[in-house]
């Protein structure tokens, strides 16, 4: 009997994974534990080992496919083994009735691909930033999310994402009746049909099902999607009809989906206003040179982080979160440091940045950036930020505007340090200047205190010995 290779669950919140590449080909002999494919979730990229020894008989999900957890992606067995039954079973299970064994798969499809892409749920106060899984979407935006145990149970049974539902209980808690109402209103469709609908952006309620009792099959979704495309093409694109220029479809993988939801949620929620300031970095440059001469290695970014940490300590409102009925000024200063990745970005957190020395900040940011690039960050490393700093100086930007990393209330965007003409004491001189841009949440921080915070950073950077 051949062994199924399934999309493994690699984290509590994981609902789906993307197959990046197959490391073994059909017909290859593999040992148990041999890496056979590489996958990516919203948090990590990882090689997965073979669940059993044998021959890789058949790969059923290809590279680039987004696959819900527990779904079969390949079979391993004895060379020449007949797996036509298993393949038939796989095909039929994706088109079988909604009851029975197909429920778990359905549940995953619903929460992963089919759920409405509302903002991401916030857990209490400063925790939880980029790690929120894609499935954690929900209907309302602010405050914590509650659901009764029974609602979760009933939702799981019916393959619904409880977090995507609007709650009618106290404090918006999702209770049983909300789940039952949602289940009642949902079009009946196979798990595969839901995935195809999500991928093609087809609204299932607009699709006519050809299955028993109007159940929607994959072919119905594909037909509906093709119909929409055809209609659009006929109307708009006659001139270019002869030139084959196909769109490229990039699956919305975990991390992209999370960023996408979180950025939208941030702009939808916070009242984002921006202050800009230009800092004369002469003294900072001088100090860094002297430290370097003394064989103490620190980067400009480390010095800026230190200045931010100090200023957050004197301006606690910048280090706060807005809850339903209070502004919580965080006791600890944990600065998120945005790190660009090939396919997205992640914001590891420099914990207790105000307590670290410059060298401490240097080694910790180096460690976090390295882990971020190799996909080795643990949950600890990117949770609990209270303020963020994004530095794109290396791209030669004068300055830029960043979007707040919710639930934080401010983010500092750091531009390049460039030699520019400056007027000093009535004379035109050349100075290394750096553009800082602070995005803050005007719901809780007004213009003047935000400006004072920015000026505090400027003062520290222009007198950097205060940081030592």
């Amino acid at each position, binding site marked *: 009997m051949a062994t199924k290779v399934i999309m493994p669950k690699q984290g509590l919140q994981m609902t789906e994974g993307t197959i990046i590449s197959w490391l073994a080909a059909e017909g290859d002999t593999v040992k148990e534990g041999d890496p056979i494919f590489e996958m990516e979730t919203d948090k990590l990229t990882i090689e997965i080992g073979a669940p059993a020894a044998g021959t890789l008989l058949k790969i059923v999900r290809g590279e680039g496919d987004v696959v819900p957890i527990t779904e079969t992606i390949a079979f391993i067995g004895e060379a020449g083994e007949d797996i036509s039954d298993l393949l038939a079973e796989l095909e039929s299970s994706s088109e079988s009735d909604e009851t029975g064994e197909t429920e778990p798969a359905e549940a995953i499809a619903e929460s992963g691909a089919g759920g409405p892409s509302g903002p991401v749920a916030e857990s209490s106060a400063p925790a939880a930033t980029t790690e929120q899984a894609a499935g954690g979407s929900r209907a309302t935006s602010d405050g914590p999310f509650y659901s*009764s*145990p*029974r*609602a*979760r*149970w009933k939702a799981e049974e019916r393959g619904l994402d409880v977090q995507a539902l609007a709650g*009618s*209980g*106290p404090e918006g808690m999702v*209770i*049983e*009746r909300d789940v039952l109402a949602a289940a009642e209103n949902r079009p009946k469709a196979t798990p595969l049909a839901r995935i195809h609908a999500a991928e093609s952006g087809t609204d299932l309620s607009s699709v006519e099902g050809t299955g028993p009792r109007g159940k929607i099959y994959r072919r119905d979704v594909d037909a509906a999607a093709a119909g929409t495309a055809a209609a659009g093409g006929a109307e708009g694109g006659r001139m270019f009809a002869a030139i084959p220029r196909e769109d490229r479809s990039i699956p919305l993988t975990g991390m992209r989906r999370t960023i996408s939801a979180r950025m939208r949620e941030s702009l939808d929620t916070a009242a984002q206003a921006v202050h800009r300031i230009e800092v004369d970095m002469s003294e900072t440059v001088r100090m860094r040179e002297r430290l370097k001469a003394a064989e103490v290695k620190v980067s400009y970014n480390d010095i800026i982080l230190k200045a931010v940490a100090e200023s957050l300590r004197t301006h606690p409102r910048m280090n706060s979160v807005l809850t339903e009925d209070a502004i919580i000024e965080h006791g600890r200063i944990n600065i998120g440091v945005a790190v660009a990745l090939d396919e997205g970005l992640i914001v590891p957190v420099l914990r207790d940045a105000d307590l670290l020395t410059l060298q401490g900040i240097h080694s910790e940011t180096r460690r976090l950036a390295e882990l971020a690039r190799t996909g080795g960050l643990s949950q600890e490393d990117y949770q609990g930020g209270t303020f963020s700093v994004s530095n794109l100086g290396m791209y030669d930007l004068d300055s830029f505007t960043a979007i707040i990393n919710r639930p934080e209330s401010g983010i500092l965007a750091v531009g390049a340090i460039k030699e520019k003409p400056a007027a000093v004491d009535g004379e035109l001189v050349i100075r290394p200047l750096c553009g800082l841009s602070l995005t803050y949440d005007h719901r809780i921080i007004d213009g003047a205190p935000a400006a004072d915070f920015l000026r505090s950073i400027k003062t520290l950077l222009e007198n950097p010995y205060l940081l030592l």
Partner: protein
Amino acid sequence: MSKKKYSAAIKDVIAEEMRADSSVFVMGEDIGALGGVFGCTRGLQQEFGKERVRDTPIAEAGYVGTGIGAALTGMRPILDFMYLDFVYVAMDQLLNQAAKLRYMYGGRASLPLVIRGQQGIGRGNAGTHSQSVEAFFTHIPGFKVAMPSTASDAAGLLRTAIRDNNPVMFIEHKALYATSEEVPDDPEFAIPFGQAAVRRQGKDVTIIATSLMVGRALEAAEKLAAEGIEAEVIDPRTLLPLDLDTLLHSIEKTGRAVVVHEAHKNNGVGAEIASQIMESGFKYLDAPVVRLGAKPCTLPFSLVLENAVVPGVEDIHTAAKQVCYK
């Protein structure tokens, strides 16, 4: 079947068990010539004589100790408490002796002992004659605790209690003695301990009620039904052992529970039942389990105030709607 009052059902079972087993006898205050303040032993002394229906001095610790000794040496005493409030006088005998002797003797002693009497409100008997004592006996390991809410249950459970080889707290209710219903005539009619009774079927909320509160819960269920809420009313009948399965089975269906007893709410049996529901049936719950019980004050003398202190039909009705988010 014969239609009987709750008090008569108890008297009849005692008489039948005494006829069937000569080791069964009764001790207590004013049970002989008077036949008990509530008539639960009326006529027994005439039939069985003063040796087997023994009037005692007003010395609860003394006759409980005597009963324990008798039980240890092979008799099956039924100790009558005119008011269960008086068990507090005999607590050392009950909690330090009766509850523990089988354990202390390494399982080689058995203690077929029934402590029965009435408790609760209904007569304006005030603070030291209206209390509910069950929580003390469910807390200390060693007792079984039964709380019949109907005449038929009183008969069936009392027979099981008398035939049990362990101490049983048999808790009756003064306000139920005058209620009547059809009771099986079969002298072997017995209700096993640990079997709850579903008094009314419903799908929306489970109301778990004991003793006097069962009737009030059923009344509340009527009102709820008129408003479109179908309440399931369950009477555990015995608190130890507790039929958790029946409760969970119901809550799996309804998702909501209200636990109501006449005893004080704070640290009461309702807290234990609610906890067990949460420990074993958390995923079924759509709302926090609500407890109802007497307010934390001494039971008053005034009949009006009695009912202001313990849960009433309206309280149960409100709580049930609350857990249904209505």
